[in-house]
C-alpha cells in the first residue's frame, strides 16, 4: 500500500512537471507554427466573459491572467527582459503612459470604430493603447435616508458640516485612487495646491480605507456619510442598496479602462491582440463587457457611438469632466502616493 502510495505521488509529481513542461513546449510549438496563444493580463471584472466570447467568435486560443492591477504591473515589470503577456487590460491610462515611456507597448494601432467625442479626446497620439470604457473618479456616494442635501462642490467637503463624514480610498492599495488625487491637483492648479486641499480634508476628519469595498462598507455602516469611490463601484452598491445615491461633483476625473499590446510579443500574437481589441469594441464584445459583471465593472460609459450604458448609471453629460494628461501625471505617481502615505493617511 505504502509503496503504491509513494509511486502514485511520484507519478503525480512527474505528471505535473510534464504538464508544466508540456505547456511550455506547446506554447513554443504553437508560436513556431504561427498560431500562438494570446495571453491576456486583465484586472477587469468582465474579462472572463469577454475572453470566452472572443474564443467563440474567432477560435484564437486565448488564456487569461486575471489579477488585480498591482500584481499584473509587477509581473510585467519583473519580466520585461523576456515578457510573456500579449495584452494588458486595466483601468487608468497613467500606467499605460508609464509602460509606453519604457517602450513596452506596441505603437501605431487604432481599431476601426466610431469613437464618442469624449473617447476621442483620450486617444494617445502615438496610439500605444486603446480606451475601452470610461468610469469617473471619484463619485460621491451617500445614503439618501441620512443625507438630504449632499455637497455640490469639492470645496464644500471642507466645511464643518462634513467633519469626520468623508471617506476615500488609499492610493497605495486602490489603483483608481491616484487618478482621483492627481485629478484634484490638476483641477486646483498644481501639486502644491492639491496637497493643501487634502491636508484640509484630513484636518476635517477624512477617513482613509484601503479600497472601494471597505469605503462603501464604512458608508453603509454609518461610520462616514460620503464615500468617494470609483463610479462603477458606487453605482453597483446603489443597485444593491436602494437607499444609496451616486452624485458627481464638477469636475469628475475620467478614468478610462485601456488595453495595450506588448511591444515584444511575436508579430502573430500582436495581430491576434489587435483582433481582440477590435472584438472588444464590436457590438458582440460590448455585450460581453456589459453582461460579465453587471453589478461591478460592467457599469462603465461606452466609448463608441451606438452603445448605451447600463441602466442606473447617472448621465455624465450633467457634469463637467476633465481628462488628465497621463504622460505628465504618470511619472508623479510614486512620489504623490508616498506623500499621501506619510501625510494624509
Amino acid at each position, binding site marked *: 500500500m505504502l509503496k503504491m502510495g509513494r509511486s502514485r505521488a511520484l507519478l503525480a509529481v512527474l505528471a505535473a512537471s510534464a504538464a508544466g513542461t508540456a505547456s511550455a513546449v506547446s506554447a513554443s510549438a504553437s508560436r513556431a507554427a504561427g498560431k500562438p496563444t494570446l495571453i491576456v493580463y486583465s484586472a477587469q471584472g468582465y474579462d472572463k466573459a469577454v475572453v470566452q466570447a472572443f474564443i467563440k467568435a474567432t477560435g484564437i486560443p486565448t488564456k487569461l491572467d486575471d489579477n488585480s492591477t498591482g500584481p499584473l*504591473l509587477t*509581473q510585467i515589470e519583473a519580466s520585461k527582459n523576456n515578457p510573456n503577456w500579449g495584452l494588458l487590460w486595466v483601468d487608468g491610462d497613467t500606467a499605460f503612459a508609464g509602460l509606453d515611456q519604457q517602450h513596452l507597448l506596441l505603437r501605431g494601432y487604432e481599431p476601426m470604430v466610431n469613437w464618442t467625442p469624449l473617447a476621442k479626446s483620450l486617444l494617445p497620439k502615438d496610439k500605444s493603447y486603446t480606451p475601452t470604457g470610461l468610469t469617473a473618479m471619484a463619485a460621491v456616494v451617500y445614503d439618501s435616508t441620512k443625507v438630504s442635501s449632499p455637497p455640490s462642490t469639492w470645496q464644500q467637503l471642507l466645511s464643518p458640516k462634513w467633519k469626520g463624514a468623508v471617506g476615500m480610498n488609499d492610493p497605495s492599495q486602490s489603483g483608481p485612487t491616484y487618478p482621483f488625487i492627481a485629478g484634484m491637483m490638476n483641477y486646483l492648479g498644481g501639486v502644491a495646491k492639491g496637497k493643501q486641499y487634502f491636508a484640509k480634508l484630513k484636518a476635517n476628519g477624512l477617513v482613509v480605507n484601503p479600497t472601494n469595498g471597505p469605503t462603501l462598507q464604512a458608508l453603509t455602516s454609518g461610520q462616514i456619510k460620503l464615500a468617494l469611490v470609483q463610479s462603477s463601484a458606487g453605482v*453597483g452598491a446603489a443597485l444593491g442598496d436602494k437607499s444609496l445615491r451616486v452624485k458627481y461633483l464638477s469636475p469628475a476625473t475620467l478614468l478610462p479602462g485601456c488595453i495595450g499590446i506588448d511591444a515584444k510579443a511575436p508579430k502573430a500574437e500582436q495581430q491576434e491582440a489587435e483582433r481582440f481589441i477590435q472584438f472588444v469594441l464590436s457590438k458582440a464584445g460590448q455585450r460581453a463587457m456589459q453582461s460579465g459583471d453587471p453589478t461591478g465593472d460592467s457599469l462603465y460609459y461606452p466609448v463608441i457611438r451606438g452603445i448605451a450604458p447600463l441602466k442606473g448609471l447617472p448621465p455624465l453629460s450633467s457634469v463637467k469632466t476633465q481628462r488628465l494628461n497621463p504622460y505628465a501625471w504618470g511619472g508623479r505617481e510614486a512620489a504623490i502616493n508616498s506623500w499621501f502615505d506619510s501625510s494624509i493617511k
Partner: protein
Amino acid sequence: MSLSSPSAGAGSAVLPGPRSRARLGRPSLGGVLQLGFWAVLLLIILLPCLAFLVLAVSPRLFEQGSSYFTLHYITGVFTGQTAVAIGNSLWVSAVASMIGVAVGFPVAWLTSRTDLPGRGLITAAMWLVLLLPSWLPSLGWVRLVQLDGVMYRVGLHLPFVTHAVLGPAGVVLVLGIRNVPFAYLAISTALAGMGQEFEDAARVHGASRLGSIRVVAPIIAPAIWSAAAIGFAEAVSDFGVAATLAYQANFQLGTYQLYTAINNFPPSFPVAASMAWLLVASVGIPLGLQARALRGRSYAVLSGRSRQVVRRRLGVRSRLLGWSAIGLFFLVALGVPAFGAISGSLLADYGGSFSLSTANYSAVLSSSVLVAPVIRSLFYGVITATVTVALGYVAARHLTRSRTRATRFLDFLLLAAVAIPSVIFAAGYIMAYNLPILSRVGIDLYQTVGLLIIAYAASSLPTNTRILVGSVSQLQASLRDAARVHGAGPVRAWLRGIAPLMSRPLIYAWLLTFTAVFLELPISQLLYAPSQPPVSVAIEDNLSNYHFGLGTAQSVVAVALALAVVVCVLGAYRLLAPRGWRQVGAGR
C-alpha cells in the same frame, strides 16, 4: 542520559568499513543523492532569492535601473518611514515568537503528557488555526472592535479596547496567536519522541511535577528553539496582518512598506530588495541565539529503548483549569476570525446591516467557475506537500548532523528563506526563471503549473524542515544501524527502523504544507498559469471586484475543504497505519 554523548547525530556514528573503502573510487548512491539535494536547494531557493536580492545593489542586471553597482537603495532603507517600519517588524516579531512558545509549550505538554480529555479535538483545532490565512483573524478583529463595529452595536462602548486592538498590541496578539500552532506542532512531536525514562529519573531523584518538567524541557530544546525561530521568521515576513489590522491601526510594518514599493507604479524592485535584505538579516538574531543555546550538545533521545509515555492523570480541578485556558485560547484564535469571515459571507450589502443571506454560498457552490479553482488548489497542495516533505526530511537530517560549514549554511538559508516575504520570493522566481537565455534554448517555465509547484515547494520547505528538525534530532543512529546489521538494505532499514518513529511528524509536516499552499496568495498571483487560477487568486479576484460577500463565502468554503482534508488524512492515519507506528509518543 546521553545529553553529552560525543555522537553528534544520526548519521555520524558508523565508521567506514572495508566495503565502504572499496567504493571510494566511484561515487556512491548516497553521494549522488546528496549532491542532487544540494543542487535542488540551490536551484529552487538560493538562485531565485539571490536573483532578487542582487537587485538591491545591481538593478541594471535585470533592467530595473541604470546602475551596475549602487548602495543608494540599501542606505535608503535605514531612513524615514522604512526604518521605522523595519524596527516595528523586529520587535513585534520577537514578542510574537515568545507568545507562540509561551502558549504552545503548555498546550503541547497537556496533550502529550496528560490524560486531558479531548486531546484530538485540540490538535484538530490547532490545525484550523494554522490553516487560516492571517488576514482572516485581522479582519474579524477589525469588524469586532472598530468604532461602528459589533462591540458598539451590542452596547459595549469600550473605546480603550478599540484603541488597544487597533494598535501595536493587537498586531502582536494576532501574530502571536498565529505562532502558537507552529510551536505546538514542533514541541508536541518532540515530546512524542521523548520516552518516559527522563521524567521518571527526575521524579526518582525527588523532583516535583513542575520540577520534572523543568528537568526534561531542555531535552526538547531544539524543538523549542526551532519554534521560536520559525515564529520570528513567520511574523517578520507576514503580510496579511500588516495589510489589514496594522494598516487600520496606522502601525506600519516592514512587509507593508515593501509591498507599497512594489505596488507603486513603476514598482521599485531595488527598494523592495533592500528591505528584503534587512528582513533576511534579521533572522540571524534567533538563529544566533539558537546556535548559542544548543552548541556542543546532542539531543538524540529516541532509540529502541525509549519507554512508552505514561500519561499523568489530572484531577477534576486541573482538567477544568486546563480546558478553561485552552478554551479561551481557541475562542480568541478561532472565534474572532470565524466571526469575521462568516459574517462577511452572510451579508449581502457590504456588511452595513445585519440582514443575513445565503445567496453568496449558493452562488459559490453552483458555479463551476468558482468551484474549479478550489479543486485545482487541492491538487497543487497534495503534490507540493508530498515533494516538500521528502525534501524537508532530508534537509532536517542534514541540520541534525554534526555542525559543519555546509549545515550552518543550510540552516541560515532555510530560515532566511522563511523571512523573505512571498511576494519577493515570487518576483525572484520571475527574474531567475524567465531569463531570455532560457527561452532561447526552449525552456519557458514562467507561468506554467510546473514552476508554480516548484515555487510552492521552495517556499514551504524551510518551515517544513523546521517542524521536522525537532523530531529528527531525537533519532539515534542505532535504529537504522540495527536494521542494517540484520541484513536490511537502506530503504528497508529506513522503513523498518525510522518510518515507524517518524510517521506522525511526517504526516503533520505534510498537512502543514498542504494547508499553507492551499490558500497561498502572493506566489500564486505572480506565477500561476493563465486560465488556471488557484483558489486564492479567485478569491482575491472577487474581493477586488467589489464582490466582498462572494469572496468571503469562497474563503469559508475553501477553509472548510482544507479542514476536511486534514480530518481525512489524520483519520486515514489512525485507520491504516500499523498500531506500533501510532503508539510512538501516544502514551498509555
